[in-house]
């Protein structure tokens, strides 16, 4: 294979891509489209992935020259329609997404993997069913399992393959969850460092600073709704760490 000069070359490279796949689900993705994506947070390119296991169309949001690069600042973000798009305060997804995009845009290079795993894999309808149970004060392990909450195993397999497809040599993972590093490494990705993902305080997340976890171990925000960490990443608001 000729060394790719630009991201666009990866589409040609992946045209006939086949591999064993990663993880127990044998997930294989290939790059099928690349385009410029100017955003309010900075200039990016968006890379579309085709996925052999389900119809989920994952994307990578790329800033700067990441081809064959090392220590690339990288954020894994799971799709959250209610948070990312609607601005729901039941989770911190939008804060985390915007923070990641801003940080990446301000550096020489970086990328965000936008994984289409709505509600950590359970889908939008079941996420809303889970919210409905929480509204009634019920958030139990067995009900969540029945709705399909699963561990993040598959996310790591997909993320690892996406990084490999993008020719990234090693990543500096933007996360507060050290387990993510081990999981990515287990899937063959070199993690050269970790960048803490600390959200600046704002009106919507100040309850992290003002309250401690309530009796049930859940964060309750100012509208009285249980607050979820849907990104499987501990939420750290600047100033909230002891």
């Amino acid at each position, binding site marked *: 294979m000729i060394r790719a000069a630009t991201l666009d070359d990866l589409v040609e490279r992946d045209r006939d891509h086949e591999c064993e796949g990663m993880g127990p689900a044998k997930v294989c993705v290939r790059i099928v489209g690349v385009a410029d994506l100017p955003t309010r947070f900075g200039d990016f390119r968006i890379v579309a992935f085709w996925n052999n296991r389900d119809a989920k169309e994952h994307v990578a949001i790329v800033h700067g020259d990441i081809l064959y690069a090392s220590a690339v600042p990288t954020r894994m973000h799971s799709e959250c329609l209610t948070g990312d798009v609607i601005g729901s305060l039941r989770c911190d997804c939008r804060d985390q997404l915007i923070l990641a995009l801003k940080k990446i845009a301000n550096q020489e290079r970086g990328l965000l993997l936008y994984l289409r795993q709505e509600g950590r894999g359970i889908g939008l309808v079941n996420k809303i069913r889970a919210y409905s149970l929480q509204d009634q004060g019920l958030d139990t392990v067995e009900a969540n*399992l*029945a709705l399909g909450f699963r561990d993040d195993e598959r996310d790591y397999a997909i993320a690892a393959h996406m990084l490999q497809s993008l020719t990234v040599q090693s990543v500096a993972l933007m996360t507060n969850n050290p387990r993510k590093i081990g999981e990515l490494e287990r899937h063959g990705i070199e993690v050269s460092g970790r960048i803490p993902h600390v959200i600046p305080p704002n009106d919507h997340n100040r309850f992290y600073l003002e309250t401690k976890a309530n009796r049930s171990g859940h964060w309750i925000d100012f509208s009285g709704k249980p607050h979820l960490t849907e990104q499987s990443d501990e939420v750290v608001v600047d100033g909230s760490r002891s």
Partner: protein
Amino acid sequence: MQTLATHDTIVIGAGIAGLACAHSLAGAGADVVLLDRARGVGGRCATWRLRDQPIDHGVAFLHCASAEMWASIYAMPEGERIDGWPKSVSGRGSPCQPRAFFPDAHRMALQVGLTAWPKHLAAGLSVRLQTTVTRLSFAGGAVHVHLRDGGDLRATTVVLAMAGPQMDPLLTDLAEVTDELRATQRLLRLLTSLPSLTVMAIYDRPKTPPSWDVFYPEDSTVLQTVVQDSAKRREPRFGALVMQGRPRWSRQNLDAPAEQWTRALLEETARYAGAWAKRPLEFKAQRWQHARVDAGNELSGPILVSLPRDCRIGMAGELFSPGGGVEAAFVSGRRLAERLLGKG
């Protein structure tokens, strides 16, 4: 005072999910009792006889992707399977299980009637039929299963294997014991099932029988499916049709007199099959209040909730595995048994 024996496990509902679960548990040496309110096992995998001719008036044929379900069906005696049935499918209406007609799907019927499979699964199990459970309670380190005839049975583990909405009332007393069950009860209320008013009818063998085995009308507000049941039988004495109503129409007519909706189904069928279909020799109406899970409501797996003193409540059925249908019922029953045995 006489103390009742406490069973390891009582499974309520001897449909495919309950049978699959009980069969696995019994195979592992557990003491299992199966209860069902009906006169026979199989639930919606049901066969009735009109003038001694078997008619499947619930599930019309079997199909699956799961190897363990095939293994179970193929463990039955030879010569009863009709592989590939239905062979001739007509109409562009939607089948209740679209995946049954994916190119790689394997379908089959059983010549003697589909209940042969549940009967085979039930062989050797301790089954109490015509036994209706009215409620469950928890006392003295056991789950009490209260029966309509007044008695009660006790077990450390009780499995509910029925349509989701039928579990709700049984959980009411236990929901006071643990939040998990309260959450489960609320969750079940978010998930809906679809009814189907059904008529099975036999005829003098028509001069021109339908050319199809199964017909899915695309333009009927009444009919979902018509199955030419006699096409499954070896040398049938009668022509036999099973007519199943669409969910919305069935819901609207659920409380109407059976004569009324029976006539509507026969007349609607005659529109497609010919006037003869209006005049059966004999027929029987069946009100399937929970004919199938409303697609999109299925959960990812069976539910198993712990109660104090090592007691447990399990739930299985077509609601408890993606895709619904007979396969989901079977798979969820097996998965629950594995979890109960500590293997899942």
